[in-house]
């Protein structure tokens, strides 16, 4: 019916949500020792004639992100959530050289510091969304913009989301207004192996490389359940069932194990004159997972499927970092905790397919209560704009069930926990001295519907100021359009 209704989380949504794009592979290799000393685009470190072993550049599309210009900024007298459980009233935060320089009460303002009155306002680390398709499924959602799923084969670990991201997606600007400083863009879920994800700074840039989070690990998107089997089963191809899904993963992992073995043998033998194994872009990515360099981000709804996947990970010797959507994670919170696997969930999406039928608002709180690492995620260009509200709903539902969670612990659900799930917690996700100054100054308690981001800082640079339309980032697409600019 309504034009948007086709995009309800209904029939089409699972495919879109799953969008996947990735490309796999190039990279790898540096896993084993010496990384190429220069990434000069010659892709390979060299050929056998030079007497060196062949190794491929693990980072052939390197980040060119540079922090925007920042001032010394002192926020005074705010209620500060540090993102790792702490809540501090009447607190100051000092940002200098793009980093958190100090936190505490009554900090002295350095010379030239810009003073921001934080009284009555709230500070949290910048919002991090571990599951976004901004850029690969950008606005407007026209046919030419469907770059998130390589729906041509069920195993496409060789595709990379960053090669499909359109940096001019107006959704990035809207997400910034919602406090998002870092986001992880994934291929969709049409395929068993969707490809590599990419972690981005939420800054305007002409290039994807200009948004890439420096040194962030690569990720691999995998998908369980209904989407792959529907997409390919509908074409009369494998997988056509959950059995076929598992068979498809296992077949690919076995090839990766053998591929890795062939490279290890080549490197171990150290014969520069030997012919190196034939490079395979798909298996490069899977080998990166087996080496522990690439983090698995797996779309999986049903509890029983997640546990099957954990057994499979053990079978082939890799780890799942985070289950995404994980609508039934609450049924296996203890198992997730035992296996040290995170769950990234919605507050209340559900009902759009059978594997989402058992969605409950208490999911996040129950998983947290079981001792597992839990977090919110959006998977949506609107939801990403208010992940604080999504956490608030999940928190309120959990408390009504009797689960005790402090506000400070719940702030971790949209800050430090997604940072951990992406392997970037050393750099961001909490307000601690020395970390990147990624921070949101909220007009009110971030768990209020009425709270809006007043200021958003990325690496200490004021990227969004609600009172300063001139400063607002605006993607090229929005220029000259009716109602120009996101609000």
């Amino acid at each position, binding site marked *: *019916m*309504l*034009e*948007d*209704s*086709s*995009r*309800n*989380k*209904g*029939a089409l949504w*699972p495919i879109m949500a799953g969008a996947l794009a990735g490309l796999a592979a190039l990279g790898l290799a540096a896993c084993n020792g010496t990384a190429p000393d220069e990434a000069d685009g010659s892709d390979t470190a060299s050929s056998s004639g030079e007497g060196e072993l062949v190794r491929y550049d693990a980072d052939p599309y390197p980040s060119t992100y540079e922090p925007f210009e920042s001032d010394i900024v002192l926020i005074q007298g705010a209620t500060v959530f540090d993102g790792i459980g702490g809540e501090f009233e009447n607190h100051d935060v000092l940002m200098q050289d793009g980093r958190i320089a100090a936190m505490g009460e009554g900090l002295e303002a350095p010379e030239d510091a810009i003073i921001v009155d934080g009284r009555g306002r709230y500070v949290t680390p910048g919002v991090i969304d571990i599951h976004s398709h901004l850029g690969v499924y950008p*606005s*407007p*959602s*026209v046919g030419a913009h469907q770059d998130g799923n390589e729906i041509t084969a069920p195993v496409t670990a060789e595709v990379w989301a960053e090669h499909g991201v359109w940096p001019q997606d*107006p*959704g990035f600007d*809207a997400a910034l207004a919602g406090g998002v400083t870092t986001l992880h863009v994934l291929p969709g879920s049409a395929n068993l192996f969707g490809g590599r994800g990419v972690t981005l700074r939420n800054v305007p840039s002409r290039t994807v490389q200009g948004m890439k989070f420096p040194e962030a690990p690569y990720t691999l998107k995998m998908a369980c359940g*209904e989407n792959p089997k529907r997409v390919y089963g509908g074409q009369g191809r494998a997988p056509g069932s959950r059995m076929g899904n598992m068979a498809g993963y296992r077949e690919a992992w076995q090839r990766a194990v053998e591929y890795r073995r062939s490279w290890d043998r080549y490197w171990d033998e150290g014969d520069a004159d030997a012919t190196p194994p034939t490079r395979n872009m798909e298996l490069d990515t899977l080998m990166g997972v087996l080496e522990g360099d690439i983090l698995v981000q797996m779309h999986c709804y049903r509890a029983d499927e997640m546990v099957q996947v954990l057994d499979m990970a053990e079978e082939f010797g890799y780890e799942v970092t985070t289950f995404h959507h994980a609508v039934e994670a*609450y*049924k*296996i*919170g*203890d198992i997730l905790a*035992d296996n040290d696997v995170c769950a990234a969930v919605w507050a*209340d*999406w559900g*009902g*759009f*397919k*059978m594997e989402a039928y*058992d*969605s*409950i*608002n*208490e999911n996040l709180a*129950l998983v947290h209560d079981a001792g597992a690492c839990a977090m919110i995620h959006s998977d949506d*260009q*609107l939801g990403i704009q208010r992940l604080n*509200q999504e956490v*608030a*709903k999940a928190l*309120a*539902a959990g408390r*009504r*069930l009797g*689960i005790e969670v402090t506000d400070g612990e719940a702030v971790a659900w949209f800050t430090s926990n997604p940072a951990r799930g992406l392997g970037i917690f050393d750099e961001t996700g909490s307000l601690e001295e020395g970390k990147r100054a990624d921070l949101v100054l909220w007009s009110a308690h971030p*768990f209020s*519907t*009425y*709270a*809006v981001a007043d200021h958003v800082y990325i690496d200490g640079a004021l990227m969004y100021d609600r009172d300063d339309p001139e400063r607002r980032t605006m993607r090229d*697409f*929005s220029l000259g*359009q*009716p*109602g120009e600019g*996101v*609000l």
Partner: protein
Amino acid sequence: MMKSLLCAAILATGLGTATAQTLAITNGRVVTNTEAGMVESGTVLIRDGVIEAAGADIAIPDGVETIDANGGWITPGIFHPHTQLGLIEVSAERSTSDVAAPAASFTAAIDVADGFNPAGGHIPDSRRRGVTRFAVFPSTGSALIGGRGALANSSGAPDSLFDDRTFLYIDLSQSGAQTAGGSRNAAWAYLRAAFEDARFYPGRFMSHHEGDAINRFDAASLVSAVRGEIPIVLQVERASDIRRALRFAEQHPAARFILAGAAESWMVADEIAAAGIPVIMDPLRNLPGSFDVLAARLDAPARLHAAGVQTAYTTISADLYFNPRLITQHAGNAVANGASWDDAFRAITLTPAEIYGVGDRYGALAEGYAGDVVIWDGDPLEVMSAPVAVLIDGERQPMTSRQTRLAERYSERVPNGQYGYRH
């Protein structure tokens, strides 16, 4: 016709309820949605399912059952103007959905009351979140005339659908244009032809003549909409399409129109207000998801209210069958972006009732209104608030759903056990 149906429904409810039941809800902030405004500490008195009084200083007769709101908020039940509750269980499973019939040969004759299931699996969760009444919409099927919608309460009772053939749904957005052959020009031509078929019904269909756009049976069903006996909900997004709709309304003065979707309606707000046409829109849509909604923005509700447009909110950006329960969050975000609290709350209670012609029975706490009351533990537009009690026609509703049962089961986890629950 609707009035009489309604009265019948109210009467039936009264008769069905235990006679002379009186109930007082006390000790809460009463949102009346009337000139009385918000009463800081008030009482709502319900007799036989109908509100007898609401406000401050209301005498409570002796021996009356009392619910203590405990300092919370007492409001009219939420009236969601735009749902598919009772029509969909699992949207991806075609066999569980009765919203659209792309292969149907009928258009206006389609009546959602035929497929509506009062026991629909998602109704209880919307109910416990405060939704007491809702409109039930068909989707665009084989043609841009989607069919006729209805009004229901969320009690789950067999008679919960209390008004049928309440409005006609017509899709003039891109999806509607596709059914007309592929352009909005074709869509308008189809609509004009269908209107003519209905205007000249039944004469045109005598002597074996066909309609220009629709068949005899559909034309018979379209007549009431063309004559203005029931309103037409027009799905339109782009400002230029909205202007076209306003012109069409002018050319058909007997018919009554409501705009739905209406992402760019804020750009045409003054004209819409002057035409007296209501709008149903989603406060959360702010991205150029298509070239029809380039100007969507978060302060659209505030702008529409300021222009005097009768504006109700919907949850289309979430969904219409599982998450109508999120309508309070959508309204709260309208407030965060400039709408007044009163306007926003009205947009999910009294305004929807008014749009469908039942604003004298639902959406306010005042004498003569149905006893649809929600007691909240805080500001209903705050995401952390929730209802503690929900009444429909004066009857307290269960606060359970499939979701609450699942949560309860798995909150009793056995550590490290093979089973995640005890029973």
